[in-house]
């Protein structure tokens, strides 16, 4: 566009607003396209049925929960405008936003909320099902009011309403159908700022702005394209060549991030993962020797140079984990046993534990080069302390099966901890979650009735002070007994082009923030 055209266009624009076009319509105007990387290709986009990472990234724009959470994990209204908790902590009442419409134009109401929680998600959403254990009933009081009644006070309840954990599902489409095979799963319908347009398998998914969206001025972008590029080096090249504007954490190798962030017009941020609080550790199989001895497990902690791993494997995008709680998780305590690297202590503990030099096997997490490097460093560190370590390789499917079936000595793992310890932390240490064949629970087989009781008390206590007390004590016990060897809090980097304004604006980061982003 040359200068004269620019002037004439802006004159035309001025003329239009003088001619009386409503300002709201102008403010609503969306423009431009943001190209995002998604890795791997999602298996489906129906967020109520599929909950894996790539699905959350794309479908977080199509579906919505009642609340959203900022970087400090404070709740804000999304489909709800106000919420109250009764003094006994047993009744939560939500006022819903009025005038919200599904993508097919039908109105959203309290009946949809009741259907989503009670009928749909209880059946399909394993993680939410566990968190809904304390829920006694949910009912619609009127079209815009929903009431949740609990069996006992449950502190983390208010942290359950994000889109990924509790997406609202359209009742008029799913009621009395087989949820798994409903044809609408292929063309998801939500209340979100973007609508499903097209999915060319193996290439891209396109979402377009929802012109009926309930929040004025959002979204500010016309199209979102999610590109599917299977190779990590090619993904780096795609960002470099400008084909893709936003690269979520983990989609390119960590050692590529610094280089790509230095490209002209590119930037990197580690914000937007607070809600998930990724935490990694070495699962130690407590059932078998030598890991059944806490002294041996402490020796493993002392043997590892976790600072060096931060530099080499994570290129600085991580922090040494203090213990079982990620620092973003509520009630994380600093008053715990710490394990700075100390080879002499490690060797002394090995002697005390009566370790005779038997070989232990390490199962790395097959998520790419960075995780591979991490495994190599762990092996090297343990060998330096005198532990014989052999690495066994497998692909993701094999890793899932072997960890779920407890078929390992040591395995690298990372999990999301979510804002509250009762949601993402307790499941990995309490004994009632031990279940063979099911991954991401207490696969290390750690049993301690005191820990069980403290986690239970922490979840059910009415006041935050009582909760904090229980969790402080549990962190002390766990860091003393070392059921698993904690590694790092991972600060996943998001690469983006600076022409995108406000790319991250909530605790779930890219999974909903582009609704509020614009191209400047």
């Amino acid at each position, binding site marked *: 566009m040359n200068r004269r055209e620019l002037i004439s266009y802006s004159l035309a624009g001025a003329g239009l607003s003088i001619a009386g076009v409503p300002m709201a319509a102008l403010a609503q105007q969306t423009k431009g396209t943001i190209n995002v990387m998604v890795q791997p290709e999602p298996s*489906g986009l129906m967020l109520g049925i599929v909950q894996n990472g790539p699905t959350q990234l794309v479908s977080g724009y199509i579906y919505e929960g009642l609340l959203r959470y900022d970087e400090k994990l404070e709740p804000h209204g999304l489909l709800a405008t106000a919420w109250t908790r009764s003094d006994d902590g047993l009744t939560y009442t939500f006022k819903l936003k009025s005038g919200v419409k599904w993508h097919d134009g039908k109105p959203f109401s309290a009946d949809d909320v009741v259907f989503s929680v009670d009928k749909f998600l209880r059946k399909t959403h394993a993680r939410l099902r566990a968190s809904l254990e304390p829920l006694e009933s949910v009912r619609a009081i009127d079209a815009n009011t929903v009431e949740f009644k609990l069996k006992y006070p449950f502190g983390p309840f208010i942290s359950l309403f994000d889109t990924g954990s509790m997406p609202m599902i359209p009742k008029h489409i799913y009621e009395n159908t087989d949820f798994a095979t409903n044809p609408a799963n292929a063309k998801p319908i939500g209340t979100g700022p973007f609508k499903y347009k097209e999915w060319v398998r193996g290439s891209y998914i396109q979402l377009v702005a929802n012109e009926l969206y309930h929040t004025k001025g959002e979204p500010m972008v016309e*199209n979102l394209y999610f590109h599917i590029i299977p190779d990590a080096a090619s993904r780096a090249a795609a960002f470099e060549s400008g084909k893709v504007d936003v690269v979520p954490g983990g989609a390119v190798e960590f050692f590529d991030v610094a280089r790509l962030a230095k490209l002209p017009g590119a930037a990197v941020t580690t914000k937007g993962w607070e809600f998930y609080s990724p935490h990694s550790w070495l699962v130690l199989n407590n059932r078998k020797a030598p890991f059944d001895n806490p002294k041996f497990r402490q020796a493993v902690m002392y043997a590892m140079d976790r600072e060096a791993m931060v530099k080499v494997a994570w290129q600085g995008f991580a922090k040494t984990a203090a213990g079982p709680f990620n620092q973003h998780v509520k009630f994380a305590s600093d008053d715990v046993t710490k394990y700075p690297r100390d080879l002499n202590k490690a060797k002394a503990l090995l002697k005390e534990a009566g370790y005779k030099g038997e070989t232990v096997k390490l199962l790395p997490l097959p998520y790419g080069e960075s995780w591979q490097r991490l495994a190599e460093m762990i092996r090297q560190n343990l060998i330096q302390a005198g532990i014989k370590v052999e690495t066994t390789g497998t692909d993701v*499917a094999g890793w*899932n099966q072997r960890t779920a079936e407890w078929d390992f000595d040591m395995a690298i793992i990372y999990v999301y901890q979510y804002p509250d310890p009762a949601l993402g932390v307790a499941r990995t240490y309490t004994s009632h979650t031990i279940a063979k064949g099911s991954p991401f629970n207490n696969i290390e087989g750690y049993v301690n009735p005191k820990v069980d009781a403290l986690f239970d008390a922490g979840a059910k206590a009415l006041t935050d002070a009582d909760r904090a007390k229980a969790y402080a004590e549990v962190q002390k016990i766990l860091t003393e007994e070392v059921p698993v060897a904690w590694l790092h809090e991972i600060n996943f980097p998001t690469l983006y082009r600076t022409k995108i304004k406000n790319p991250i604006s909530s605790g779930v980061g890219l999974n909903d923030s582009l609704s509020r982003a614009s191209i400047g």
Partner: protein
Amino acid sequence: MNRLRYMSVRVLQGLLVLMCIATVNFMLIRAAPGDPVAVIAGEAGASDPQFVAQLREQFGLDKPVTTQLANYLGHITQLDLGFSYRQQRPVLELIAERLPATLLLTGSAFVMSLIFGVALGATASRHVGKWVDSAITFVALVFYATPLYWLAMMAVLVFSVQLSWLPGFGYFTVGSDATGFARAWDIAQHLVLPSLTLALFYMAVYARMTRASMLEVAQMDFVKTARAKGVRMGRIQRQHILRNALLPIVTLAGIQAGGLIGGAVLTETVFAWPGIGRLMFDALLQRDYNLLLGCFLVAAAVAVLFNLITDFVYTLVDPRIELG
């Protein structure tokens, strides 16, 4: 034996081979650790025994393996390749959707490698011992020995990232609504880098083989006779030497063609080409049994088909070869 009878016997044999392949594949995949349920539960980052049991039942994985195999073989005889666990769609539909992209890629690489490979080999043999020969032999050796993966990555970095001459990813420009000629031109541009990288290896093989084969035939008595009779050199090259030297190349081309479907996994991965090679690879990683078996079966069927065609082409190139 007449041609029709020969062909029908071969087709029946081919079908039998396919059933055997399907059975062996079924057993092999089950021998790998992990199953689709473990993968799906793992990807969700959480699960409970109820969720796992629900999925196993939904996929029919709670039945004995022999029952599953019998069901599977029963279905494929009716051309029903089953349902993809992970993508929640019929396998045949998924394969049909991806097949055109792969055929376009491997087909154009096939034609390119055959034409340029034979031409380069023939040129080299005509100038044997001269610099042209040395140059062609050297280049062929380099492409023969360079890993495809590295070559592909370099092609992207140089021509797409640095020079911005050609698109480095995908099948067409995402977001463009071009139709007709504009769309064909768009796809053609996207096709250049992947098909070229894929073609280079086979081009090198054909060039080396044509050269060796032509030099061997050139030593034979009938060529000397032709030369003594005063036949022009160009004619001898084309009619006498090349035609007789073609047989090993037809064999090799048959093998390459048989692998047209599955042979492009690496190229498709690097260039994000939405073809069947990648579909197969993803299905393997996700233990999507039905989809993986479906891809294998289609690839095997193509290999069997091209074996038949190769045998047939032999008789055209050299009429002395009989069907039987």
